[in-house]
């Protein structure tokens, strides 16, 4: 389709792409050769920094800059690929890993060159069993072909890669919790600072990047930063694989340039809501982003900065659409329950706040809440935001807070007074 700009998905439907033979036939691993044989680590780092590639995992921090924070010097440095894609609504990494694992591995090897990392891990979500097996096989192939090992392409640099399966906690997608989990501890976020770039895995400097971010690296190296910047907007260069799901006719992953109209993504690519329905609202960046109503959101361009301006965020680039048949109160409860279940319990506001919010929303859906309860729900979300150790608490508080603000009348309809008046009417 014309609206799509395929870089990561260029050969995505090629049969047998997961094998190194097909991948190499289509020009794969050329970037690694270039990065290791023609370029110095500083040049690779410079190229990545120059490209302006922003992290695709949620925070949108510049990847090159992050890599440059790692101290120089001779020590064990780590690179972790965050493949713990657990955000409700996000399934882009799954497709990237399942269909094109070597693109990711190539990206990791390049990023390892830039950061000077010698020990790499792919922390993959435990539920992605098939994808884990595919990666395992691909890593084996890459070792066999000499792209991984103690001596990459004869340059003497060591890059070792291990695929590690997570144990099923959402929080392990948070980078420091991922590190704890990888070390064999309970997956709880760590206090920052120290940041992982300084003191991460096993106390060593660690670079952590998302699957999609790393998958971009081979393309930047082979075609250059300038080429990469020709896509997308000035502040968000490149393309983005967007997972569109919910009340749309053709849910799926679509790779678009950053900055395309959101309307194009939802209505044209994903086919819009079922016939006769209209978009009531949507999460622009996974379940942790504040919801946008259909009216305000559809006209925005889909980019990091536009979403931030609108009070939401692009996050992992996962659009969940809901039409007018969906009750926002139910949606809020479903969202809150997810975060309540996934809260690790380390810090107070998140642990108790998610629990309290669920209890209040449950009461609301049962029609037992008083008007004060809605005020308390809103106030509890405010009490959570900005007070937590990691972003999980905020991830619940922001969408729920936005729902209460933007769809207040739906919440009011569930109040106890309403159920009384309904009962009175029935009588």
């Amino acid at each position: 389709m014309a609206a799509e700009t395929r870089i990561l998905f260029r050969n995505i439907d090629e049969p047998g792409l997961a094998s190194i033979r097909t991948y190499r036939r289509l020009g794969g691993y050329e970037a690694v050769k270039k990065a290791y044989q023609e370029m110095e680590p500083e040049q690779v780092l410079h190229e990545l920094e120059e490209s302006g590639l922003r992290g695709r995992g949620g925070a949108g921090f510049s990847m090159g800059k992050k890599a440059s924070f790692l101290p120089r010097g001779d020590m064990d440095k780590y690179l972790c690929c965050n493949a713990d894609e657990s955000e409700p609504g996000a399934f882009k990494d799954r497709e990237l890993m399942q269909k094109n694992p070597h693109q990711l591995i190539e990206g990791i090897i390049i990023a390892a060159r830039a950061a000077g990392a010698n020990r790499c891990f792919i922390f993959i979500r435990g539920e992605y069993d098939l994808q884990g097996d595919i990666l395992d096989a691909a890593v084996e192939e890459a070792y066999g072909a000499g792209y991984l090992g103690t001596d990459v392409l004869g340059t003497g640099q060591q890059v070792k890669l291990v695929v590690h399966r997570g144990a099923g906690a959402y929080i392990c997608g948070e980078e420091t919790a991922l590190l704890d989990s990888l070390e064999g501890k309970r997956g709880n976020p760590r206090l920052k600072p120290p940041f992982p770039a300084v003191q991460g895995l096993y106390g060593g400097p660690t670079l952590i990047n998302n699957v999609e971010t790393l998958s971009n690296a081979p393309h930047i190296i082979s075609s250059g930063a300038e080429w990469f910047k020709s896509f997308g907007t000035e502040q968000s260069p490149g393309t983005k694989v967007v997972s569109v799901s919910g009340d749309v006719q053709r849910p799926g992953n679509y790779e678009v340039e950053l900055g395309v109209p959101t309307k194009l993504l939802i209505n044209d690519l994903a086919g819009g809501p079922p016939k006769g329905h209209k978009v009531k609202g949507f999460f622009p960046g996974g379940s942790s982003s504040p919801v946008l109503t259909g009216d305000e959101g559809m006209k925005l361009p889909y980019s990091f900065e536009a979403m931030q301006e609108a009070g939401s965020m692009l996050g992992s680039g996962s659009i969940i659409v809901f039409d007018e048949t969906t009750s926002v109160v139910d949606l809020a409860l479903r969202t809150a329950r997810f975060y309540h279940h996934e809260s690790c319990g380390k810090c107070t506001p998140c642990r108790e706040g998610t629990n309290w919010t669920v209890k209040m929303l449950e009461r609301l859906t049962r029609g037992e809440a008083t008007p004060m309860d809605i005020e308390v729900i809103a106030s509890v979300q405010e009490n959570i935001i900005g007070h937590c150790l990691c972003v999980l608490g905020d991830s619940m508080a922001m969408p729920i807070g936005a729902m209460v603000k933007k769809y207040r009348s739906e919440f009011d309809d569930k109040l106890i007074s309403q159920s009384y008046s309904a009962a009175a009417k029935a009588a």
Partner: protein
Amino acid sequence: MSQPIRNAVTLNIDGREVTAPEGTMLVDAAKHGDIEIPVFCYEPKLGEPVGACRMCLVEIEGIPKLQTACSTPIRDGMTVYTQTDRVKGAQNAVVEFLLINHPLDCPVCDKGGECPLQDIAMGWGPGKSRFTDPKRHFQKPLPLSPLVAIDRERCILCYRCVRFSQEISEDEQLVLHERGDRSFVGTFDDRPYIAPFHGNITELCPVGALTSYTYRFRARPWDIEDAGSVCTLCPSQCNVKFTVRDERALRVLARDNEDVDDGWLCDKGRYSFQMLASEERITEPMVRAGDGTLAPVSWEEAISKVAAGLRDAGTASAVLAGGGTSNEEGWLLQRLLREGLSSPNIDSSASGARADLVRELSSPALGSRMRELDYADAILVLDTEPLNEMPILDLRIRKAVRRTGAQLLVASEHPSSLDGGAAEAVRFAPGEAAELIGALAAALGAPGYEDDGPHAEKAKAIAELLRTGPDPVIVWGERLFRTPGAVEALLACAKALGIDKRLGPGLLEVPESANGRGLREVGCLPGAGPGLAPTQTGAAASGIRDGMVNGEIKALLLSEADPVRTHPGSEAWRKALASTFVVSIAMFDDPSTAYANVVLPAESHAEKEGTVTHPDGRLQRVRPNVPRPGQIRPTCQVLTDLAATLGQTWDLPDQPAVLAAMTDDVDFYAGISDETIGGQGVRWQELASGRSWGPAVGGRTDNQGDPPPASAGSGLLLGTYRDLWASEVTERNPALRFLKRGQMLEIAPKDAETMGLENGDGVRVSVNGTSVEARVAIRTRMEAGVGFLAEGLAENNGNALVNGAGTRIEVEKTAPAAEFEAAGMGQKATVLSLEGEAAAR
């Protein structure tokens, strides 16, 4: 690395100029300006902050988000606000969140009145909760261990106890189960949390979730008085606080002293207060009547009886001072003996420490402070098991390894609990200490030592790691004195390392008895008088024993000493005590008082007034906290009265007078008074008196180690070790009785295989017809050809078999392990039954 120098940093908190050392966290820095920032999870003793409770959020200029003050190090010129509406909003929010699932059952909660959650909820909370839904419920209270109850509803999940278990005591038993608001603290499979330091978690808990069964519901903070003292049950000499209600000690708490205990206490010290008011205590003087029973008598009669006995013996008298004896008492004892009876036979330990070596080792240049361990580059633990002999030292060493990355080296006969964290752990056979240390001295290049023995390889590895940095600390056990030549080699090692040239690094001895160093320094050593001054050489402990048997020594005064139990050769001691006039100053009936002609009641460490000396030379005060029960008199007074009856008029009416006279007599204690000791103690090496230390003049004494083996059998070589719980304290405190252990024969897997023994088998271990019953325990980190037994047990004491160095044992299987399992005495059953026992109550 040496102690880092920290510059002063000035910052602005709430408009006040606050100056604090750099690296300080904001919470601590705020205290310098009298500003309190509330915290729950932050506890500097536990190491790195975790920032879990979010109570300490503050606003820092230039940072948009609120920051946790517990994890933010101060910077010069930073501006911090702790009172703004934003900060108050956050504090109110966190308190409200914390109280959502807290049961608020303060009236029945043991922590009520001394609860940080109560205080912070009052001071920083919103005053009321908007939470109307049902709270989280758990079954409660449950025994976490026989000594600690856990109430999971009250828990605010601050992680303190879990961090203690994981990172301080490193027993790694406590974990957090489940996630989110369903999290709870527990152990794997709900097994009882049994570890030597676990009582500390009750003190760490900021709410009433972890409470001691021994203190449960006993008193409220307004019912009690806190009194500071020093625990004299082991050489750690931890600073403690007794909680006293109605003149009875109800609880022991740690009193932070970074130079001694770092704020921790072991369970032995924490739960041993019950014996103070025990019904079993000896509370009046007793004299053995004609029919062999002890009958209570008046003090006057008892003292005249003692005086008569000692006068009869005259120069053939002897004294054994035990670990609980204070410096003052020790000094009076040696004066009584040396001046009153003109006898030189006094000793304070079983090791046979040689006076000239002790004097050399006491040099301020060689000694190390406790605090030095925190900055050591390498720590060598030499033939001692800190966990058993000086428990707090174990935590201190673990701290050094974990936080500052010190290299830990262990060289011991018996497998050590520190082996796991050690960079190098080596074993040597009992009696081979001198060879190993000699090899080490050779590897370090000490003159006069040759490097050719079987230990050369091990020694080289240790020597290399010891030289990793300029500041090594060597922790060694007094047991080394038992092997001739070992301490000389140790001194050679110290000199080869240049320890005596540098301030800071040095040797730290783990004495065999609680006040071992103090007693030696005040003159309870054959061959050295007060101040380690050379004097007439007398008999050491083993010499006293032999002298008693062959009639050379006719009277023995035991001061809180129980040689039958703690000294090698129990049977020989029994024979010795039975054949002479024995006076015992004791708290309880013990195997040695059974032979005493006169028994005088002893003060406990909660009743005594006096000073003790820490192994690093720190003098500390033992203060009376509870009244002496019954007819008990201060031992100082008793000894003075005894001297008066023997015709010595001393004019020392009370403890301060004795202290003054003692510090006059011990030259390097000069100028020390109650005031200079104060609440935290003082090292004599750091006073003017210590700096004027000079080398000893002459006076070499010849206390050789144990005599060569009486019989060289063919069996395993016998080794003995001290066990933390193999002591009278365990038996006299109902709370600790569940820890009373049986004898175990520890052998290497290879020996077990050749002898056809399995874990848990019952065996009879015998030497020359004397035997003890034991169960087999197979230890992997042991040398083959050696069998280890624990010393100091009430029954089947390992000491009974010790008969000079190189004793060999015969092992005979009496019952297979399955038989014990069937009788419910299997190893697994023993551990699990503890839960039900909950003996404390």
